[in-house]
Protein backbone atom coordinates (compact mmCIF):
# COMPACT_ATOMS: atom_id res chain seq x y z
CA UNK A 1 0.00 0.00 0.00
CA UNK A 2 1.32 3.43 -0.97
CA UNK A 3 0.09 6.54 0.75
CA UNK A 4 -0.34 9.77 -1.19
CA UNK A 5 -1.14 12.90 0.72
CA UNK A 6 -3.81 15.16 -0.74
CA UNK A 7 -1.37 18.10 -0.73
CA UNK A 8 0.64 16.34 -3.46
CA UNK A 9 -2.51 16.03 -5.54
CA UNK A 10 -3.37 19.70 -5.03
CA UNK A 11 0.14 20.78 -6.00
CA UNK A 12 0.13 18.60 -9.11
CA UNK A 13 -3.28 19.79 -10.30
CA UNK A 14 -2.31 23.42 -9.71
CA UNK A 15 0.79 23.04 -11.83
CA UNK A 16 -0.98 21.04 -14.54
CA UNK A 17 -3.73 23.67 -14.84
CA UNK A 18 -1.11 26.36 -15.44
CA UNK A 19 0.94 24.26 -17.86
CA UNK A 20 -2.12 23.25 -19.83
CA UNK A 21 -2.96 26.90 -20.43
CA UNK A 22 0.50 28.38 -21.02
CA UNK A 23 2.19 25.62 -22.96
CA UNK A 24 0.69 24.22 -26.11
CA UNK A 25 1.86 20.62 -26.44
CA UNK A 26 4.70 19.88 -28.88
CA UNK A 27 2.48 17.46 -30.84
CA UNK A 28 0.11 20.35 -31.63
CA UNK A 29 3.00 22.56 -32.74
CA UNK A 30 4.24 19.76 -35.00
CA UNK A 31 0.74 19.44 -36.43
CA UNK A 32 0.77 23.17 -37.28
CA UNK A 33 4.07 22.67 -39.10
CA UNK A 34 2.74 19.71 -41.08
CA UNK A 35 -0.36 21.72 -42.01
CA UNK A 36 1.75 24.67 -43.15
CA UNK A 37 3.33 22.39 -45.74
CA UNK A 38 0.01 21.36 -47.29
CA UNK A 39 -2.30 24.34 -46.72
CA UNK A 40 -3.11 26.06 -50.04
CA UNK A 41 -5.05 29.00 -48.61
CA UNK A 42 -2.94 32.12 -47.90
CA UNK A 43 -5.37 33.20 -45.16
CA UNK A 44 -5.16 29.70 -43.70
CA UNK A 45 -1.37 29.79 -43.66
CA UNK A 46 -1.45 33.19 -41.95
CA UNK A 47 -3.69 31.78 -39.25
CA UNK A 48 -1.40 28.79 -38.67
CA UNK A 49 1.63 31.04 -38.51
CA UNK A 50 -0.11 33.34 -36.02
CA UNK A 51 -1.03 30.34 -33.86
CA UNK A 52 2.62 29.29 -33.73
CA UNK A 53 3.70 32.78 -32.69
CA UNK A 54 0.87 32.90 -30.18
CA UNK A 55 2.01 29.62 -28.59
CA UNK A 56 5.57 30.89 -28.28
CA UNK A 57 4.48 34.17 -26.69
CA UNK A 58 2.16 32.36 -24.26
CA UNK A 59 4.90 29.94 -23.21
CA UNK A 60 7.55 32.60 -22.62
CA UNK A 61 5.34 35.20 -20.94
CA UNK A 62 3.20 32.69 -19.04
CA UNK A 63 -0.06 34.06 -20.30
CA UNK A 64 -2.79 31.71 -21.48
CA UNK A 65 -2.71 31.12 -25.24
CA UNK A 66 -6.50 31.41 -25.28
CA UNK A 67 -8.48 33.71 -22.98
CA UNK A 68 -10.90 30.85 -22.43
CA UNK A 69 -8.87 28.90 -19.93
CA UNK A 70 -11.43 26.16 -19.89
CA UNK A 71 -13.45 23.87 -17.69
CA UNK A 72 -11.03 21.58 -15.84
CA UNK A 73 -11.74 17.96 -16.67
CA UNK A 74 -9.59 15.48 -14.72
CA UNK A 75 -9.23 11.87 -15.67
CA UNK A 76 -7.88 10.19 -12.57
CA UNK A 77 -6.41 6.71 -12.70
CA UNK A 78 -6.20 5.60 -9.11
CA UNK A 79 -4.18 2.48 -8.39
CA UNK A 80 -5.94 0.01 -6.12
CA UNK A 81 -2.81 -0.07 -3.95
CA UNK A 82 -2.91 3.68 -3.34
CA UNK A 83 -4.34 5.14 -0.17
CA UNK A 84 -5.17 8.86 -0.37
CA UNK A 85 -4.55 10.46 3.03
CA UNK A 86 -5.11 13.86 4.60
CA UNK A 87 -8.44 14.65 2.99
CA UNK A 88 -10.72 13.92 0.07
CA UNK A 89 -9.44 13.34 -3.46
CA UNK A 90 -12.02 15.53 -5.17
CA UNK A 91 -11.53 18.40 -2.72
CA UNK A 92 -7.78 18.19 -3.27
CA UNK A 93 -8.31 18.46 -7.02
CA UNK A 94 -10.61 21.46 -6.63
CA UNK A 95 -8.12 23.15 -4.34
CA UNK A 96 -5.48 22.66 -7.05
CA UNK A 97 -7.79 24.24 -9.60
CA UNK A 98 -8.53 27.14 -7.24
CA UNK A 99 -4.83 27.82 -6.62
CA UNK A 100 -3.79 27.30 -10.23
CA UNK A 101 -6.40 29.64 -11.66
CA UNK A 102 -6.06 32.33 -9.00
CA UNK A 103 -2.26 32.41 -8.82
CA UNK A 104 -1.81 31.77 -12.54
CA UNK A 105 -3.95 34.68 -13.80
CA UNK A 106 -6.28 32.26 -15.52
CA UNK A 107 -9.86 33.15 -16.29
CA UNK A 108 -12.72 32.07 -14.04
CA UNK A 109 -15.23 30.63 -16.51
CA UNK A 110 -17.51 28.46 -14.38
CA UNK A 111 -20.94 29.48 -13.11
CA UNK A 112 -22.28 27.81 -9.96
CA UNK A 113 -25.64 26.95 -11.48
CA UNK A 114 -26.75 26.64 -15.12
CA UNK A 115 -29.78 28.71 -14.16
CA UNK A 116 -28.63 31.59 -11.96
CA UNK A 117 -25.27 31.75 -13.80
CA UNK A 118 -23.22 33.30 -10.99
CA UNK A 119 -19.49 32.89 -11.56
CA UNK A 120 -17.76 30.84 -8.85
CA UNK A 121 -14.79 33.17 -9.20
CA UNK A 122 -12.01 30.58 -9.11
CA UNK A 123 -12.94 28.20 -11.93
CA UNK A 124 -14.05 25.46 -9.54
CA UNK A 125 -15.39 22.86 -9.50
CA UNK A 126 -13.60 20.49 -11.86
CA UNK A 127 -15.29 17.57 -13.58
CA UNK A 128 -13.59 14.46 -12.21
CA UNK A 129 -13.65 11.04 -13.84
CA UNK A 130 -12.21 8.39 -11.59
CA UNK A 131 -11.01 5.03 -12.79
CA UNK A 132 -9.59 2.30 -10.59
CA UNK A 133 -6.51 0.63 -12.02
CA UNK A 134 -4.11 -2.01 -10.69
CA UNK A 135 -0.92 -1.05 -8.90
CA UNK A 136 0.51 1.69 -6.67
CA UNK A 137 0.23 4.60 -9.15
CA UNK A 138 -1.93 7.68 -9.24
CA UNK A 139 -2.17 9.39 -12.58
CA UNK A 140 -4.06 12.62 -13.20
CA UNK A 141 -4.65 13.89 -16.71
CA UNK A 142 -5.88 17.45 -16.84
CA UNK A 143 -7.73 19.01 -19.72
CA UNK A 144 -8.96 22.59 -19.48
CA UNK A 145 -11.76 22.22 -21.99
CA UNK A 146 -12.65 25.26 -24.06
CA UNK A 147 -16.31 26.20 -24.15
CA UNK A 148 -16.67 27.26 -27.79
CA UNK A 149 -15.67 23.88 -29.17
CA UNK A 150 -17.38 21.92 -26.38
CA UNK A 151 -20.63 23.60 -27.47
CA UNK A 152 -20.28 21.88 -30.83
CA UNK A 153 -19.83 18.40 -29.40
CA UNK A 154 -22.61 15.97 -30.29
CA UNK A 155 -24.03 12.54 -29.65
CA UNK A 156 -26.08 10.25 -31.83
CA UNK A 157 -27.46 6.80 -31.28
CA UNK A 158 -26.99 5.07 -34.61
CA UNK A 159 -28.35 1.61 -35.40
CA UNK A 160 -26.32 -1.46 -36.29
CA UNK A 161 -27.73 -1.08 -39.84
CA UNK A 162 -26.12 2.38 -40.10
CA UNK A 163 -22.84 0.56 -39.65
CA UNK A 164 -19.33 1.85 -40.18
CA UNK A 165 -20.31 4.20 -43.01
CA UNK A 166 -22.94 5.74 -40.73
CA UNK A 167 -20.31 6.34 -38.07
CA UNK A 168 -17.97 8.04 -40.57
CA UNK A 169 -20.79 10.21 -41.93
CA UNK A 170 -21.81 11.26 -38.42
CA UNK A 171 -18.26 12.31 -37.46
CA UNK A 172 -18.03 14.34 -40.68
CA UNK A 173 -21.44 15.86 -40.01
CA UNK A 174 -20.22 16.99 -36.57
CA UNK A 175 -17.14 18.61 -38.10
CA UNK A 176 -19.18 20.24 -40.87
CA UNK A 177 -21.74 21.71 -38.47
CA UNK A 178 -19.01 22.85 -36.06
CA UNK A 179 -17.70 24.78 -39.06
CA UNK A 180 -15.86 28.00 -38.23
CA UNK A 181 -17.46 28.25 -34.77
CA UNK A 182 -15.25 25.73 -33.01
CA UNK A 183 -11.95 27.35 -34.00
CA UNK A 184 -10.68 24.95 -36.64
CA UNK A 185 -8.29 23.29 -37.19
CA UNK A 186 -9.80 20.93 -34.67
CA UNK A 187 -9.46 17.46 -33.22
CA UNK A 188 -12.45 15.14 -33.08
CA UNK A 189 -12.44 12.81 -30.08
CA UNK A 190 -14.80 9.98 -30.90
CA UNK A 191 -16.31 7.39 -28.59
CA UNK A 192 -18.02 4.50 -30.34
CA UNK A 193 -19.87 1.79 -28.42
CA UNK A 194 -20.79 1.29 -24.81
CA UNK A 195 -23.82 3.15 -23.54
CA UNK A 196 -24.92 6.78 -23.87
CA UNK A 197 -22.58 8.04 -21.14
CA UNK A 198 -19.76 5.60 -21.89
CA UNK A 199 -19.46 6.82 -25.48
CA UNK A 200 -19.34 10.45 -24.31
CA UNK A 201 -16.63 9.68 -21.77
CA UNK A 202 -14.54 7.82 -24.35
CA UNK A 203 -14.85 10.73 -26.77
CA UNK A 204 -13.22 13.02 -24.21
CA UNK A 205 -10.56 10.58 -23.14
CA UNK A 206 -9.61 9.99 -26.78
CA UNK A 207 -8.36 13.60 -26.94
CA UNK A 208 -5.37 12.78 -24.73
CA UNK A 209 -3.76 10.67 -27.42
CA UNK A 210 -0.73 12.21 -29.08
CA UNK A 211 -1.66 14.10 -32.20
CA UNK A 212 -0.23 12.45 -35.29
CA UNK A 213 0.07 9.05 -33.59
CA UNK A 214 -1.53 5.94 -35.01
CA UNK A 215 -4.43 4.18 -33.38
CA UNK A 216 -3.09 0.91 -31.92
CA UNK A 217 -5.89 -0.98 -33.72
CA UNK A 218 -4.98 -0.99 -37.44
CA UNK A 219 -8.63 -1.27 -38.54
CA UNK A 220 -9.63 1.76 -36.44
CA UNK A 221 -6.50 3.57 -37.58
CA UNK A 222 -7.62 3.21 -41.19
CA UNK A 223 -11.03 4.66 -40.30
CA UNK A 224 -9.41 7.62 -38.56
CA UNK A 225 -7.18 8.36 -41.54
CA UNK A 226 -10.06 8.14 -44.01
CA UNK A 227 -12.30 10.44 -41.95
CA UNK A 228 -9.42 12.91 -41.48
CA UNK A 229 -8.82 13.03 -45.21
CA UNK A 230 -12.51 13.54 -45.93
CA UNK A 231 -12.77 16.23 -43.22
CA UNK A 232 -9.92 18.14 -44.82
CA UNK A 233 -11.73 18.07 -48.16
CA UNK A 234 -14.68 19.99 -46.68
CA UNK A 235 -12.89 23.28 -47.38
CA UNK A 236 -13.62 24.90 -43.99
CA UNK A 237 -9.94 25.54 -43.27
CA UNK A 238 -8.15 27.35 -40.42
CA UNK A 239 -10.67 29.57 -38.59
CA UNK A 240 -13.17 28.74 -41.32
CA UNK A 241 -11.57 31.20 -43.75
CA UNK A 242 -11.41 28.41 -46.35
CA UNK A 243 -8.61 25.90 -46.76
CA UNK A 244 -7.29 22.38 -46.50
CA UNK A 245 -6.68 22.21 -42.76
CA UNK A 246 -10.00 21.68 -41.03
CA UNK A 247 -9.02 18.83 -38.72
CA UNK A 248 -5.64 17.83 -37.32
CA UNK A 249 -6.69 14.47 -35.94
CA UNK A 250 -9.55 12.04 -35.51
CA UNK A 251 -9.05 9.99 -32.35
CA UNK A 252 -11.39 7.05 -31.84
CA UNK A 253 -11.87 4.91 -28.75
CA UNK A 254 -14.25 1.96 -28.87
CA UNK A 255 -16.05 -0.24 -26.36
CA UNK A 256 -18.30 -3.29 -26.70
CA UNK A 257 -21.95 -2.44 -27.21
CA UNK A 258 -25.45 -3.89 -27.03
CA UNK A 259 -26.82 -5.86 -30.00
CA UNK A 260 -29.36 -3.08 -30.62
CA UNK A 261 -27.01 -0.11 -30.39
CA UNK A 262 -24.32 1.87 -32.14
CA UNK A 263 -23.70 4.91 -29.92
CA UNK A 264 -21.33 7.56 -31.28
CA UNK A 265 -20.21 10.61 -29.32
CA UNK A 266 -17.99 13.27 -30.83
CA UNK A 267 -16.17 15.76 -28.62
CA UNK A 268 -14.96 18.66 -30.69
CA UNK A 269 -11.66 20.10 -29.51
CA UNK A 270 -10.10 23.24 -30.94
CA UNK A 271 -6.42 23.73 -31.76
CA UNK A 272 -6.03 25.41 -28.36
CA UNK A 273 -5.88 21.93 -26.84
CA UNK A 274 -5.30 22.68 -23.17
CA UNK A 275 -4.19 19.31 -21.92
CA UNK A 276 -1.47 18.19 -19.53
CA UNK A 277 -1.09 14.62 -18.35
CA UNK A 278 0.76 14.04 -15.11
CA UNK A 279 1.18 11.99 -11.95
CA UNK A 280 1.77 13.30 -8.43
CA UNK A 281 4.41 11.88 -6.11
CA UNK A 282 4.82 12.04 -2.36
CA UNK A 283 4.87 15.64 -1.10
CA UNK A 284 8.47 16.73 -1.43
CA UNK A 285 8.75 16.44 -5.20
CA UNK A 286 5.16 16.41 -6.34
CA UNK A 287 5.86 16.45 -10.05
CA UNK A 288 9.12 14.59 -10.47
CA UNK A 289 7.48 11.65 -12.20
CA UNK A 290 5.32 13.51 -14.66
CA UNK A 291 4.37 11.16 -17.43
CA UNK A 292 5.59 12.09 -20.90
CA UNK A 293 3.28 14.64 -22.45
CA UNK A 294 0.61 13.34 -24.71
CA UNK A 295 0.74 9.72 -23.64
CA UNK A 296 -2.06 7.77 -22.14
CA UNK A 297 -1.21 5.18 -19.48
Amino acid at each position, binding site marked *: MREIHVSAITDAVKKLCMEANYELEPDMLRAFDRALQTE*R*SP*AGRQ*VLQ*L*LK*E*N*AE*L*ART*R*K*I*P*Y*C*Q*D*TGFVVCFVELGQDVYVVGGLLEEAINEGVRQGYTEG*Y*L*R*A*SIVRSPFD*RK*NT*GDNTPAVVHLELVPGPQLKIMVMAK*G*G*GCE*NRSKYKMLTPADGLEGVKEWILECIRTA*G*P*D*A*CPPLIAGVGVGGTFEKAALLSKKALFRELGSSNPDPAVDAIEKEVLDRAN*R*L*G*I*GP*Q*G*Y*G*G*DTTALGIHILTYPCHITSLPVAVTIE*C*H*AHRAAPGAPRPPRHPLADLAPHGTLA
Partner: protein
Amino acid sequence: MIKTAPDGIKEVVPPLSDADVEALRAGDRVRISGILYTGRDAAHARFLPLMDEEQPLPIDVRGQILYYTGPSPARPGMVIGSVGPTTGSRMDKYAPKLLALGLKGMMGKGSRSREVREALKRHKGVYFGAVGGAGAILSQFVKKAEVIAYEDLGTEAIRRLEVENFPAIVVNDCHGGDLYEEGMRQYAR
Protein backbone atom coordinates in the same frame (compact mmCIF):
# COMPACT_ATOMS: atom_id res chain seq x y z
CA MET B 1 -12.67 57.00 -44.35
CA ILE B 2 -11.11 53.57 -44.80
CA LYS B 3 -7.56 53.73 -46.12
CA THR B 4 -5.74 50.83 -47.67
CA ALA B 5 -2.13 50.53 -46.52
CA PRO B 6 0.65 49.67 -49.01
CA ASP B 7 0.54 46.04 -47.79
CA GLY B 8 -3.09 45.80 -48.92
CA ILE B 9 -4.51 45.79 -45.41
CA LYS B 10 -7.38 48.18 -44.70
CA GLU B 11 -7.05 50.59 -41.77
CA VAL B 12 -10.22 50.71 -39.68
CA VAL B 13 -10.66 53.52 -37.14
CA PRO B 14 -13.95 53.72 -35.23
CA PRO B 15 -16.38 55.41 -35.10
CA LEU B 16 -17.46 54.01 -38.46
CA SER B 17 -19.80 55.69 -40.92
CA ASP B 18 -22.09 53.99 -43.43
CA ALA B 19 -19.51 54.80 -46.10
CA ASP B 20 -16.75 53.14 -44.06
CA VAL B 21 -18.80 50.00 -43.71
CA GLU B 22 -19.65 49.99 -47.41
CA ALA B 23 -15.94 50.08 -48.25
CA LEU B 24 -15.32 46.77 -46.46
CA ARG B 25 -15.72 43.44 -48.24
CA ALA B 26 -15.76 39.88 -46.96
CA GLY B 27 -12.19 38.57 -47.00
CA ASP B 28 -10.57 41.99 -46.52
CA ARG B 29 -7.77 41.95 -43.98
CA VAL B 30 -7.99 44.89 -41.61
CA ARG B 31 -6.07 46.60 -38.81
CA ILE B 32 -8.23 48.29 -36.22
CA SER B 33 -6.90 51.27 -34.26
CA GLY B 34 -8.79 53.25 -31.63
CA ILE B 35 -11.58 52.12 -29.36
CA LEU B 36 -13.16 48.69 -29.08
CA TYR B 37 -15.85 47.89 -26.53
CA THR B 38 -15.98 44.38 -25.12
CA GLY B 39 -19.19 42.57 -24.33
CA ARG B 40 -20.41 38.99 -24.42
CA ASP B 41 -23.27 36.81 -23.17
CA ALA B 42 -23.96 38.28 -19.74
CA ALA B 43 -23.62 41.93 -20.79
CA HIS B 44 -25.88 41.36 -23.80
CA ALA B 45 -28.46 39.71 -21.56
CA ARG B 46 -28.54 42.94 -19.52
CA PHE B 47 -28.85 45.04 -22.68
CA LEU B 48 -31.99 43.24 -23.78
CA PRO B 49 -34.55 44.61 -21.29
CA LEU B 50 -33.01 48.08 -21.67
CA MET B 51 -33.41 47.92 -25.44
CA ASP B 52 -36.94 46.57 -25.15
CA GLU B 53 -37.90 49.49 -22.88
CA GLU B 54 -35.94 51.99 -24.98
CA GLN B 55 -33.70 52.84 -22.03
CA PRO B 56 -30.12 54.02 -22.64
CA LEU B 57 -27.37 51.39 -22.70
CA PRO B 58 -24.25 51.89 -20.56
CA ILE B 59 -22.31 52.66 -23.75
CA ASP B 60 -23.31 54.72 -26.76
CA VAL B 61 -23.02 52.07 -29.47
CA ARG B 62 -23.43 54.43 -32.43
CA GLY B 63 -20.58 53.95 -34.88
CA GLN B 64 -18.75 51.60 -32.52
CA ILE B 65 -17.32 48.09 -32.71
CA LEU B 66 -18.31 45.55 -30.08
CA TYR B 67 -15.69 42.86 -29.49
CA TYR B 68 -17.03 39.56 -28.18
CA THR B 69 -14.40 38.61 -25.65
CA GLY B 70 -13.91 37.81 -22.00
CA PRO B 71 -10.23 38.46 -21.28
CA SER B 72 -8.16 36.52 -18.80
CA PRO B 73 -6.84 38.56 -15.82
CA ALA B 74 -3.84 40.78 -16.50
CA ARG B 75 -0.57 39.89 -14.82
CA PRO B 76 0.93 42.78 -12.82
CA GLY B 77 2.40 45.35 -15.20
CA MET B 78 0.39 44.11 -18.15
CA VAL B 79 -2.50 45.99 -19.77
CA ILE B 80 -4.72 42.94 -20.16
CA GLY B 81 -4.50 39.17 -20.19
CA SER B 82 -5.26 36.91 -23.12
CA VAL B 83 -7.98 38.53 -25.22
CA GLY B 84 -9.16 36.49 -28.20
CA PRO B 85 -12.66 36.28 -29.66
CA THR B 86 -15.54 34.15 -28.47
CA THR B 87 -18.25 32.58 -30.66
CA GLY B 88 -20.40 35.29 -32.22
CA SER B 89 -23.54 33.23 -32.76
CA ARG B 90 -24.37 33.33 -29.06
CA MET B 91 -24.99 37.05 -29.50
CA ASP B 92 -27.23 36.56 -32.57
CA LYS B 93 -30.35 37.08 -30.49
CA TYR B 94 -29.24 40.62 -29.56
CA ALA B 95 -27.23 41.81 -32.57
CA PRO B 96 -30.05 43.03 -34.87
CA LYS B 97 -31.39 45.29 -32.11
CA LEU B 98 -27.93 46.75 -31.46
CA LEU B 99 -27.38 47.33 -35.18
CA ALA B 100 -30.72 49.14 -35.32
CA LEU B 101 -29.42 51.42 -32.56
CA GLY B 102 -26.41 52.31 -34.68
CA LEU B 103 -23.76 49.74 -33.74
CA LYS B 104 -21.55 49.42 -36.82
CA GLY B 105 -19.19 46.59 -36.11
CA MET B 106 -19.00 43.32 -34.21
CA MET B 107 -15.94 41.18 -33.82
CA GLY B 108 -15.86 37.53 -32.83
CA LYS B 109 -15.45 34.16 -34.47
CA GLY B 110 -17.84 31.75 -36.13
CA SER B 111 -20.95 32.05 -38.27
CA ARG B 112 -23.83 34.44 -37.71
CA SER B 113 -27.51 33.76 -38.27
CA ARG B 114 -29.43 34.78 -41.35
CA GLU B 115 -31.21 37.44 -39.24
CA VAL B 116 -27.90 39.02 -38.26
CA ARG B 117 -26.58 38.94 -41.82
CA GLU B 118 -29.79 40.59 -43.04
CA ALA B 119 -29.48 43.22 -40.30
CA LEU B 120 -25.92 43.97 -41.46
CA LYS B 121 -27.32 44.76 -44.90
CA ARG B 122 -30.27 46.74 -43.59
CA HIS B 123 -28.39 48.89 -41.07
CA LYS B 124 -24.97 48.97 -42.78
CA GLY B 125 -22.93 46.91 -40.37
CA VAL B 126 -19.92 44.63 -40.55
CA TYR B 127 -18.81 41.47 -38.72
CA PHE B 128 -15.09 41.02 -38.24
CA GLY B 129 -13.35 37.78 -37.41
CA ALA B 130 -10.38 37.75 -35.04
CA VAL B 131 -8.28 34.60 -34.78
CA GLY B 132 -9.71 32.36 -32.08
CA GLY B 133 -7.23 30.73 -29.74
CA ALA B 134 -4.66 33.46 -30.34
CA GLY B 135 -5.54 35.56 -27.29
CA ALA B 136 -1.96 35.88 -26.08
CA ILE B 137 -0.70 37.54 -29.23
CA LEU B 138 -3.86 39.63 -29.62
CA SER B 139 -3.23 41.10 -26.15
CA GLN B 140 -0.13 42.80 -27.58
CA PHE B 141 -2.32 45.11 -29.68
CA VAL B 142 -4.24 46.41 -26.65
CA LYS B 143 -2.65 49.55 -25.24
CA LYS B 144 -5.17 50.43 -22.56
CA ALA B 145 -8.11 48.66 -20.95
CA GLU B 146 -10.68 49.80 -18.42
CA VAL B 147 -13.92 48.39 -17.12
CA ILE B 148 -16.68 50.87 -17.81
CA ALA B 149 -19.84 48.96 -16.89
CA TYR B 150 -21.13 45.81 -15.18
CA GLU B 151 -17.97 45.30 -13.16
CA ASP B 152 -19.74 42.58 -11.17
CA LEU B 153 -19.68 40.40 -14.29
CA GLY B 154 -15.93 39.91 -13.96
CA THR B 155 -14.51 38.78 -17.27
CA GLU B 156 -17.89 39.51 -18.87
CA ALA B 157 -17.89 43.18 -17.81
CA ILE B 158 -17.92 45.85 -20.49
CA ARG B 159 -14.44 47.14 -21.15
CA ARG B 160 -13.16 50.00 -23.22
CA LEU B 161 -10.02 48.92 -25.03
CA GLU B 162 -7.62 51.20 -26.82
CA VAL B 163 -6.05 49.16 -29.58
CA GLU B 164 -3.38 49.76 -32.20
CA ASN B 165 -3.29 47.80 -35.43
CA PHE B 166 -5.45 45.01 -34.05
CA PRO B 167 -5.53 42.35 -36.82
CA ALA B 168 -8.85 41.02 -38.09
CA ILE B 169 -10.62 39.98 -41.27
CA VAL B 170 -14.02 40.91 -42.66
CA VAL B 171 -16.29 37.87 -42.35
CA ASN B 172 -19.69 39.38 -43.18
CA ASP B 173 -20.00 42.67 -45.04
CA CYS B 174 -23.05 44.85 -45.65
CA HIS B 175 -23.33 43.64 -49.25
CA GLY B 176 -24.19 40.05 -48.33
CA GLY B 177 -20.62 38.76 -48.63
CA ASP B 178 -19.69 35.87 -46.34
CA LEU B 179 -16.04 34.83 -46.05
CA TYR B 180 -16.93 31.46 -44.50
CA GLU B 181 -19.20 30.47 -47.37
CA GLU B 182 -16.88 31.80 -50.05
CA GLY B 183 -13.79 30.22 -48.48
CA MET B 184 -15.43 26.84 -48.14
CA ARG B 185 -16.69 26.93 -51.71
CA GLN B 186 -13.23 27.77 -52.97
CA TYR B 187 -11.36 25.02 -51.11
CA ALA B 188 -13.86 22.12 -50.93
CA ARG B 189 -12.55 19.13 -52.88
